[in-house]
């Protein structure tokens, strides 16, 4: 019994690691960029290390480094961080019913590790249910944390030798990862609507330099997906009741004849 249990744990550890591996590799350029940019903008090594260690957020780190280098006010830096991170409120809400029942240490650690990437791997309806799935999530999220740190350290070490990486098109690695994660899940009409609205609005808001572009685009898109689903359900229901009433009248007619 213990052997099979240990085997099951090991399988989950392996699966969590392997599922996250492509995402860990995809953020290599971003991590190096974050680390090297911090050094190039005159952060000390300790400060540059603390960014991935405690802040642990790709775009928030990058933007904050530029803001700090330009002597932006503390309020500006913190507000911008908040705006960029606000999408995580949605993740916490979406996973609330599953995470709120967990013991504190699991909640804190999975909460800390709840990045876009871990959330993207948490779509299964049984995610976080049972010890094995928690181990899966911890290994997936934890390996992402370690790889993010590793890439940042690489950037910090190589920092002053690297050219300015911001113009190299490194952001495509992130885009292609998210394409790989999203496209296979678009299997029904509500998903098509959600993705289409999110795509259109996010581009529009970006062009308008709207600060909350990402979150507002996502929320409107989610609502459109939700409305589409409701509309489909209602149509299905009314179709069913139509069929049912036809059957009923047919039965009645048959009854009259006999």
């Amino acid at each position, binding site marked *: 019994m213990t052997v099979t249990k240990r085997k099951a744990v090991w399988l989950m550890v392996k699966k969590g690691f392997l599922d996250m591996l492509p995402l860990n590799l995809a953020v290599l350029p971003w991590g190096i960029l974050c680390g090297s940019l911090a050094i190039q903008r005159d952060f000390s090594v300790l400060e540059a290390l603390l960014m991935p260690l405690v802040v642990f957020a790709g775009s928030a780190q990058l933007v904050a480094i530029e803001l700090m280098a330009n002597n932006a006010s503390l309020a500006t830096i913190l507000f911008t961080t908040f705006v960029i991170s606000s999408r995580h409120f949605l993740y916490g809400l979406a996973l609330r019913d599953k995470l709120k029942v967990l013991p504190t240490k699991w909640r804190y650690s999975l909460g800390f590790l709840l990045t876009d990437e871990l959330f993207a791997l948490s779509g299964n309806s049984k995610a976080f249910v049972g010890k094995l799935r928690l181990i899966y999530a911890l290994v997936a999220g934890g390996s992402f944390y370690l790889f993010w740190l590793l890439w940042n350290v690489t950037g910090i070490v190589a920092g002053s030798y690297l050219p300015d990486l911001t113009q190299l098109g490194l952001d495509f690695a992130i885009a292609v990862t998210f394409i790989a994660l999203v496209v296979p899940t678009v299997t029904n009409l509500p998903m098509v609507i959600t993705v289409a609205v999110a795509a259109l609005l996010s581009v529009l808001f970006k062009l308008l330099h709207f600060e909350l572009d990402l979150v507002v685009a996502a929320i409107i898109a989610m609502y459109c*997906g939700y409305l589409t689903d409701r509309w489909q359900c209602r149509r299905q229901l009314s179709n069913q009741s139509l069929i049912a009433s036809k059957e009923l009248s047919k039965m009645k007619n048959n009854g009259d004849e006999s």
Partner: protein
Amino acid sequence: MTLLTIFLMAFITFGTRYLFTHPSLPIRLGPKVAKFLSYSAPAVLTAIWVPIIFVQQGQLNLSITNPYFIAASFAVITAAKSKSIYLTMLAGLITFILSRYILAM
């Protein structure tokens, strides 16, 4: 000063992730809200990747010689056909590097 800023930032990033998983918050999610939230992953991830493809330096780039667009198209097709994350990344990255290289000539 920088250290203080970093720790305050950490407080914010952790706070936004953790807040709604806290059990004693007086929030109860009905089935309607749960359905709405089930669209959060495709919505947020799409709102991140699509602007990377079409907006560069604050400008809309809808040209078919946009290497981001060419590579993203290949990636979308590969993802839809194969559903494999590795294959999609490989196809996307190779097309991206090739099209950038060829278009720069």
